[in-house]
């Protein structure tokens, strides 16, 4: 489905990003595994992909830093000659109720989740314009659409990502470039493992399909949006939440 495509996936050392990288490589894409903190995980993932006959390499960059994001895109373009797919997945949480949320907690989450997305698109823009082809997939969240107590910063960043997605879709649609967002619900990752059993049970109550999401549920959606099959879909937010938000 993604044969010969070149994909850059940010925050691909762990969680959803890791699964997206693995899935894309499985569909034939050449993958740049971006990481910031998770070097060992990223290298292990590259080894895993390579062993399975895929093509991948790891690159360290803090996407919240404008010039490091530029370095990432330059590396990818030099390494594989083009960039067909950008998945803005890198994200962090610093949860707290509004009353206790520090300025730094707010700024840091916005910097990585929202500005990181801007930085990466800003630096891939030229390459994709030149190719007259591109697939941009931004990781939003159901929280960005519905809000969540204790996640003012995260919700704001993920709502902002939707604004970026729709604007970029309008701006670049005429150049063969699509931009879509995925809004995962409750997916089993390190980020959600932090919740206790009672919290998890309460969440399950609201999920129509009565199970937690798997990272593969999100990765397969991303693969479809990244493929040529999705060329008429742009500016959309696809919820992958098992019906949680119904």
């Amino acid at each position: 489905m993604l044969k010969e495509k070149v994909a850059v996936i940010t925050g691909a050392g762990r969680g959803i990003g890791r699964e997206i990288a693995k899935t894309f490589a499985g569909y034939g894409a050449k993958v740049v595994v971006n990481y910031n903190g998770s070097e060992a995980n990223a290298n292990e993932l590259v080894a895993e992909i390579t062993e399975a006959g895929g093509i991948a390499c790891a690159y360290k960059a803090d996407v919240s830093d404008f010039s490091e994001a530029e370095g990432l895109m330059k590396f990818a373009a030099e390494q594989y000659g083009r960039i067909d797919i950008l998945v803005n997945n890198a994200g962090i949480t610093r949860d707290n109720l509004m009353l206790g949320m520090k300025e730094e907690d707010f700024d840091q989450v916005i910097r990585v989740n929202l500005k990181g997305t801007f930085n990466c698109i800003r630096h891939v823009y030229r390459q994709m314009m030149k190719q007259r082809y591109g697939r941009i997939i931004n990781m939003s969240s159901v929280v960005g659409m519905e809000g969540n107590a204790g996640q003012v910063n995260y919700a704001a960043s993920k709502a902002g990502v939707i604004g970026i997605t729709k604007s970029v879709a309008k701006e670049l649609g005429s150049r063969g470039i699509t931009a879509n967002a995925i809004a995962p619900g409750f997916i089993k990752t390190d980020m959600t493992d932090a919740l206790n059993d009672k919290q998890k049970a309460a969440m399950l109550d609201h999920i129509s399909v009565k199970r937690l999401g798997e990272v593969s549920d999100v990765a397969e959606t991303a693969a479809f949006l990244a493929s040529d099959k999705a060329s008429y879909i742009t500016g959309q937010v696809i919820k992958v939440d098992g019906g949680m938000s119904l």
Partner: protein
Amino acid sequence: MFEKIKAIFEEQLGVSQDEMSLDTNFKDDLGVDSLDLYEIVMKMEDEFDVEIPAEELEDVATFEDVINYLKSKGVEE
């Protein structure tokens, strides 16, 4: 240099070179939008081997402006 620039515009916009003279205004006379201009700039960078930062193009409106700009960048022909 003018010939090369005209060829780039023709390729990008599908407008005949007959409609281009030194004082032709891109926006008013050729209907160029900012994305077109951006792509044209990228092609000129390749053609003339220069780097053209977007913010330096704010005052560039005609072919004469482009030629003067490129000359200021050291492009000779």
